[in-house]
């Protein structure tokens, strides 16, 4: 008589149970939505912070001044050697004349600097890096290039950025981890409450000879369906909230330096992550909840 796996039965029982215990299902979905929204919002803030810090990092460049005795042609010949230094991504050469003109443009009293000799400043390279954490090493490598007179780098500022970014990433990871665990237990308790009403059914099934697996599967299906429903609702709500906040930030003059990543560009990451987390907390919560009632 016994069959090993009756997927159709588990599916119909699991889905049927969602509707017969409508209020508890609604409560569980609400909890999943709330948990995902909190986790999602926090992660999006962290991602945007990371992106903006990344942009600021990219603006952080090293100025490499070439020895005064080098002619422009000789100074330009150093480009290849500088490019070969690890961590250097982009370099641009600025001649003495260009540097002077740039210097004069930035000054208010242009007349004061009108008659300066053309070679008062040095030829220079502006260098961008791949990894700002390696700024000290890169500065040292540049200083070792023959013909380089001086390298100016805002090492303290760069290290400050790195520290802020590492702290933000660490805090985000820890908080998301804590929220995930808290969510799992909240969902487990919500489903446990729903399961409590059905403990009699479970006890009857056990005494009729149902295996634990047979009893568990409909709950797994139910948890999965609740998790998926919650994650889809949370996904669209998050979209709306994010859009609203991003629009306000972009329109705000005070925060004009801030750039926001568009939600649509992150859909291929957010949707699977929301669905995955939703299913994990839905199914995990179901399994934790039902464990106690299987001890008959």
């Amino acid at each position, binding site marked *: *008589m016994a*069959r090993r796996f009756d997927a159709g039965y588990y599916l119909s029982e699991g889905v049927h149970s969602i509707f017969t215990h409508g209020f508890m299902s609604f409560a569980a979905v609400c909890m999943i939505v709330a948990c995902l929204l909190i986790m999602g919002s926090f992660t999006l803030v962290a991602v945007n912070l990371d992106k903006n810090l990344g942009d600021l990092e990219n603006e952080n460049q090293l100025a490499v001044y070439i020895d005064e005795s080098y002619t422009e042609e000789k100074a330009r010949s150093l480009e290849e050697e500088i490019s070969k230094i690890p961590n250097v991504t982009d370099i641009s050469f600025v001649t003495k004349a260009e540097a002077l003109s740039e210097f004069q443009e930035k000054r208010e009293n242009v007349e004061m600097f009108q008659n300066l000799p053309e070679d008062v400043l040095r030829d220079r390279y502006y260098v961008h890096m791949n990894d700002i954490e390696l700024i000290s090493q890169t500065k040292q490598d540049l200083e070792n290039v023959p013909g380089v007179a001086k390298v100016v780098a805002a090492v303290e500022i760069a290290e400050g950025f790195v520290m802020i970014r590492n702290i933000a990433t660490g805090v985000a990871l820890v908080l998301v981890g804590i929220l995930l665990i808290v969510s799992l237990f909240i969902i487990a308790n919500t489903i446990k409450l729903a399961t409590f009403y059905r403990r009699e*059914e479970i006890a009857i*099934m056990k005494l*009729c*000879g149902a295996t634990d697996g047979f009893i568990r599967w409909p709950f797994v299906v139910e948890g999965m369906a609740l998790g998926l429903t919650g994650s889809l609702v949370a996904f669209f709500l998050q979209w709306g909230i994010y859009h609203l906040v991003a629009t306000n930030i972009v329109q705000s003059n005070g925060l004009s330096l801030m750039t926001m990543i568009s939600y649509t560009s992150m859909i291929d990451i957010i949707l699977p992550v929301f669905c995955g987390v939703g299913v994990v907390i839905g199914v995990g919560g179901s399994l934790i909840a039902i464990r106690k009632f299987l001890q008959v």
Partner: protein
Amino acid sequence: MIRLIDVYKEYDNGTKALKGVNLRIDDGEFVFLVGPSGSGKSTIIKLITAEIALTEGRLMVNGYNLNTITPRQVPYMRRTLGIIFQDFRLIEKKTVYENLSFAMRAVGASNREVRRRIPYVLKLVGLDQKADRYPGQLSGGEQQRVAIARALVNNPSMIIADEPTGNLDPQRSLEIMMLLERINELGTTVLVVTHEKNLVNRFDKRVVAIENGRIMSDGTGGYYNGEKI
């Protein structure tokens, strides 16, 4: 077949519920297990259904050795038993038919098997016209008949009825007991736990009397057999 050999059961709180019980129930028998409250009747039922484990002794149920049974084997052992409770324990949200199909699906029966078996069992207990009713729409006697049908539906080799008439009036109680007698005549072993003296004495069946965790008498011919209780 059930075999208890020198069985002791002591609960965690120190209560000694069974003190060296020896009992053998062969296939096809009809047995009343009688005794006052707290005598150990329910403990024997719980041991047989593997809801609790014994402290000492040996216990065999329908070919399963409960001393060595693994948790994975317990459901299969329980499929050899049909259990009836005093409070019926029907699912209120399900119809009579659904209560029965629920029990059949629990042991992996297919839709075809469910459709074939349930009408037969409902007819056997006289409820074939009430398959679509909910438990709340039935009388106490009818609800207990549904519980009996549920116990029978998976074709167990033994029915265990724990105070099946405790919630019923004398007439309904007699009807339920006659139904169990008929089921026994069809080949199923029946073990009825009760303390209803008059009811027991109306049937000429084997009566096992238990008191204070010990078997006090075991014989045919009525509740006070041997006048030990």
